[in-house]
C-alpha cells in the first residue's frame, strides 16, 4: 500500500520564535501558555497530537500538593520540606516548592479555561472530603487538604484550546531531534543568570547557548529548522531502558510508549547537565507483565483507601504508622495521633518513612501469618457511598487511561461497584512482581539539573515536568511548565539573535535521512529489546565498574548499527527508529551516571558491589554528569544547593508574586 500522506523527505521548513517549547504534554502546554501570555511568540513541537498527548493527556484524577488552596492546613514550605526529607534530601527542592506554591494558581487558571476542578454539580454534597463553601474535593489526608480530586479528562483539550487562542503555533506529529547551539568562550568571572553555573561547569570553558532545534515530521518526513531565543524541554523522561515488550508493549505501560526520553537524549548530546540519573527502582508497571494501572483491586492512589477482603470474605485490617489498628474507614483519611501530615499518592516515599507514613493495610506476609487467605479483593460495596462513588466514577474515570479501558469496559462486562469485589494481583499499588534487575525511572528519578529559573547549565535552555530531576506528577508538570514558560519569555526579551550554524544542521539532516537510505532489516523493536537486555545484565540492581564498563561496550556495539541503518519504510518508522537511538543514548547516560557515583546510596536505590558501604557522608551530594567534546565531565552539587526556598523563589519571581498568584 502507498503511504497515505505526502512524502517530503527533501523538504525543509524554517521557522523562528522567541520561545520554542519541545513536547506538548502537560508541562509543554503550560510552558507555551505562560510564554505566550508574557508576550512571546511561541512555537510548540509535539510528536503526537496535542489535544490528548502525553502521559496526562487522557486524564488526571488528583492534583497533588496544591498547598495554597483555601482549605489547606499545610504551607508550601512545610510540604516541600516533607517531600524533600522523605527522599533523604535527594530531591528537587526548587521544582517541588514551585509545585506546592503555584499548584492552586494553575487550577484556577484551568477552571477559567473550562477545566473542571470543583464539584459544581453537587454530586458529593455532604461528603467528608468536600468543602461545602468552595466545593473543592480532597484526596488522602482530609484533615490537611492539600491534594485535590479533579476531573482531569477535561484538562488537556482546555489547554490545547488556550494555546490556540493565544496564537501558539502548534506543530503536531513533529518529533524534535536535536538542539541547535552556538558555542562561545565565556568571559572570566561573568555571572550567568540565577545562581550562576550549575555543577560541572567552570569559568573559562566554552559556554554553549541553545538557539533552537531541528525536527522531523512523523507523517511526511519533512525536516524542520526551528530557531529560538529560548528553548524549553518538556519531553517526559526516559523509558524502555530495562523493560521492553516488542509484542504487547502498550496496555500496562504507565506512560505512553513514545514518551521515551527524546528530550534527555538531545540535551545530553548538547552538553546539558544531569543529576540523579543513577537512580532507578525495581519496576512497578510495564507491559511486559503487570496488569494495567488502576485496573485491579488495591488501596493506593486512585483506589485509596478502599477496603479489602480476603478469599473468605474477611475484612483486611488497616493500621497507622505505629501499628495501631484503624477501624473506621474515615480514620484512614487522617494522620496518626501526633503526626503532622502523611504523604500518599505520587509523593508517597518508596522507602519506609515513619514520619510521613500514612495508614495502610497490613503487609501480605503478616496477613498470611495471621491466617488470612489469598487472593485479596477490593471491597467497594462495603465502602461508604460517597467514598465508593468517588473511587469508582470519579477517580477511576478521570485518571488517565481509566475512562475507556477500565470504567467503560468493566461496566460493559457487568462490573457493579455496589455488588462486586475486584481481585487484587500484587502488593501495594503494583499489580505484578518484578525481578530486581527489571528497573524503571520512577519515584523521583533523575533528570536535568536546574537553577531557580528552571534554566539548565546551557544558556537559553530551560526544562519542565518530567525532564527535571526528581519529578513526579501532573501538578508538578503543570506548575514547572508555567514557571519555565514565563522565565524563558523574560530571557527571550533581552536575548540577542543567534547566527545559524549550517554545519550542525546538515550533520543532523544527514543523521536522520541516512536511516531512510540504509535499507537494513534491523527493526527498532529488535534494537530496543537488545538495549533492555544489556541494561538488565549490566546495570541491574547491583552494579560495579566492570559490569558498567562492559555494558557501555555493548551499548556502543549496538550504536554501530546506526551506521548501517534501521528498517525504515515510511516517516512513522523513521520516528520510531530515531526514538530507539535516543533510548540507546539514554542508556549510555544512565551507565555514565552510575559510574560517576562511587558509593552505594539507599535513597537512590543504588548499590555498587565495589563500593558496598551505604551512604558514606562524603557522597551525600548530587553527582552531576554532562558531555563536553565527547568526554563525560563529572561534577557535584550540595543537596541544599538551592538555599532558602521562600527567599530563592521570591527573589526570582517578584512580578509573579506581586501580580499573578492567587
Amino acid at each position, binding site marked *: *500500500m*502507498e*503511504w*497515505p*500522506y505526502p*512524502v517530503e*523527505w*527533501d523538504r525543509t521548513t524554517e521557522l523562528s520564535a522567541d520561545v520554542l517549547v519541545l513536547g506538548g504534554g502537560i508541562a509543554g502546554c503550560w510552558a507555551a501558555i505562560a510564554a505566550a501570555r508574557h508576550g512571546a511568540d511561541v512555537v510548540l513541537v509535539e510528536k*503526537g*497530537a496535542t489535544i*490528548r*498527548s*502525553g502521559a496526562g*493527556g*487522557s486524564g488526571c484524577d488528583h492534583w497533588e500538593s496544591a498547598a495554597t488552596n483555601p482549605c489547606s492546613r499545610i504551607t508550601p514550605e512545610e510540604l516541600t520540606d516533607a517531600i524533600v526529607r522523605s527522599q533523604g534530601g535527594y530531591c528537587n527542592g526548587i521544582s517541588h516548592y514551585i509545585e506546592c506554591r503555584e499548584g492552586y494558581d494553575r487550577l484556577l487558571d484551568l477552571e477559567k479555561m473550562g477545566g473542571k476542578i470543583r464539584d459544581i454539580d453537587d454530586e458529593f454534597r455532604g461528603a467528608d472530603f468536600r468543602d461545602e463553601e468552595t466545593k473543592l474535593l480532597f484526596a488522602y489526608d482530609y484533615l490537611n487538604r492539600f491534594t485535590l480530586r479533579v476531573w482531569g*479528562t477535561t484538562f488537556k483539550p482546555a489547554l490545547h484550546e488556550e494555546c490556540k487562542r493565544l496564537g501558539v503555533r502548534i506543530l503536531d*506529529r513533529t518529533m524534535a531531534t536535536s538542539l541547535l547551539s552556538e558555542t562561545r568562550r565565556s568571559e572570566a568571572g561573568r555571572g550567568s543568570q540565577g545562581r550562576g553555573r550549575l555543577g560541572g561547569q567552570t569559568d573559562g570553558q566554552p559556554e554553549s547557548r541553545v538557539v533552537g532545534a531541528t525536527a522531523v515530521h512523523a*507523517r511526511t*518526513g519533512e525536516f524542520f529548522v526551528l530557531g529560538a531565543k529560548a528553548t524549553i524541554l518538556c519531553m517526559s523522561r526516559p523509558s524502555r531502558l530495562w523493560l521492553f515488550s*516488542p*509484542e*504487547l*508493549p*502498550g*496496555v500496562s505501560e504507565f506512560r*505512553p*510508549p*513514545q514518551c521515551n526520553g527524546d528530550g534527555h537524549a538531545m540535551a545530553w548530546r548538547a552538553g546539558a547537565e544531569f543529576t540523579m540519573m543513577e537512580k532507578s527502582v525495581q519496576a512497578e508497571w510495564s507491559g511486559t507483565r503487570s*496488569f*494495567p494501572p488502576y*485496573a*485491579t483491586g488495591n488501596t493506593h492512589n486512585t483506589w485509596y483507601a478502599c477496603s479489602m477482603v480476603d478469599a473468605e*470474605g474477611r475484612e483486611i485490617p488497616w493500621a497507622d504508622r505505629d501499628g495501631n489498628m484503624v477501624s473506621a474507614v474515615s480514620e484512614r483519611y487522617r494522620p496518626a495521633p501526633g503526626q503532622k501530615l502523611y504523604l500518599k499518592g505520587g509523593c508517597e516515599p518508596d522507602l519506609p518513612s515513619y514520619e510521613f507514613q500514612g495508614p495502610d493495610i497490613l503487609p501480605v506476609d503478616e496477613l498470611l501469618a495471621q491466617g488470612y487467605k489469598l487472593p485479596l*479483593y477490593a471491597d467497594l*460495596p462495603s465502602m461508604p457511598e460517597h467514598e465508593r462513588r468517588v473511587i469508582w466514577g470519579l477517580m477511576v474515570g478521570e485518571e*488517565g*487511561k481509566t*475512562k*475507556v*479501558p477500565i470504567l*467503560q*469496559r*468493566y461496566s460493559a*462486562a*457487568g*462490573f457493579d461497584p455496589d*455488588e*462486586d*469485589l*475486584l*481481585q487484587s*494481583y500484587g502488593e501495594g499499588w503494583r499489580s505484578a512482581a518484578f525481578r530486581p534487575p527489571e528497573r524503571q525511572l520512577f519515584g523521583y528519578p533523575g533528570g536535568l539539573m536546574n537553577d531557580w529559573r528552571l534554566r539548565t547549565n546551557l544558556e537559553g535552555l530551560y526544562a519542565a515536568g518530567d525532564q527535571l530531576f526528581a519529578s513526579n506528577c501532573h501538578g508538578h508538570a503543570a506548575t514547572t511548565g508555567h514557571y519555565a514558560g514565563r522565565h524563558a519569555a523574560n530571557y527571550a526579551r533581552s536575548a540577542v539573535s543567534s547566527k545559524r550554524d549550517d554545519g550542525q544542521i546538515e550533520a543532523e*539532516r544527514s543523521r536522520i*535521512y541516512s536511516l*531512510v*537510505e540504509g535499507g537494513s532489516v534491523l527493526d527498532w523493536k529488535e534494537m530496543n529489546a537488545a538495549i533492555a537486555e544489556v541494561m538488565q545484565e549490566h546495570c541491574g540492581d547491583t552494579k560495579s565498574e566492570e559490569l558498567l564498563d562492559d555494558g557501555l561496550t555493548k551499548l556502543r556495539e549496538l550504536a554501530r548499527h546506526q551506521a548501517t541503518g534501521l528498517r525504515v*519504510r*515510511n516517516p*512513522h518508522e523513521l520516528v*520510531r527508529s530515531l526514538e530507539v537511538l535516543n533510548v540507546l543514548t539514554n542508556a549510555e547516560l544512565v551507565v555514565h551516571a552510575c559510574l560517576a557515583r562511587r558509593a552505594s546510596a539507599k535513597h537512590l536505590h543504588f548499590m555498587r558491589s565495589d563500593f558496598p558501604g551505604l551512604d558514606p557522608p562524603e557522597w551525600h551530594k548530587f553527582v552531576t554528569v554532562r558531555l563536553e567534546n565527547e568526554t563525560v565531565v563529572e561534577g557535584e552539587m550540595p543537596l541544599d544547593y538551592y538555599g532558602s526556598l521562600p527567599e530563592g523563589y521570591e527573589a526570582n519571581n517578584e512580578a509573579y508574586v506581586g501580580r499573578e498568584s492567587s
Partner: protein
Amino acid sequence: MTSKKAYAIVDTAPAEPLSFDADLCIGCNACVDVCQVDIMIPNPKVGLPPIVLYPGECWYDGSCVDACPEPGAISLNSQAKDRVLFKRKHTGEDFYT
C-alpha cells in the same frame, strides 16, 4: 536527503487493540487524528474505517473511542492477559472483565 518512496505495510501483533463497526463508522478519521501514538492511517477508500497499521504500538488510553462521534463505531479491546476477575459479593459468582 532521499527520494526513497514510502510504504504502508500493516504490522503484525498478537493482539488487535481496536475493532470497528463498519455500519456505524462514517470514516471521519477523528480517531486517527487524536491517537498520540499514531497507530492508524485513513482508509484509502473514503468513508470506510481507518486501517490499524501498527496495532502493537497501542497504549490503550481509549482517546480514540472518546473522540468518536458515532458511539459503537470503534471499540477498544482488552488483551486476553489483562482480563481481571471480579466476584459478586453475595453469591460468590466469578466473572471476568
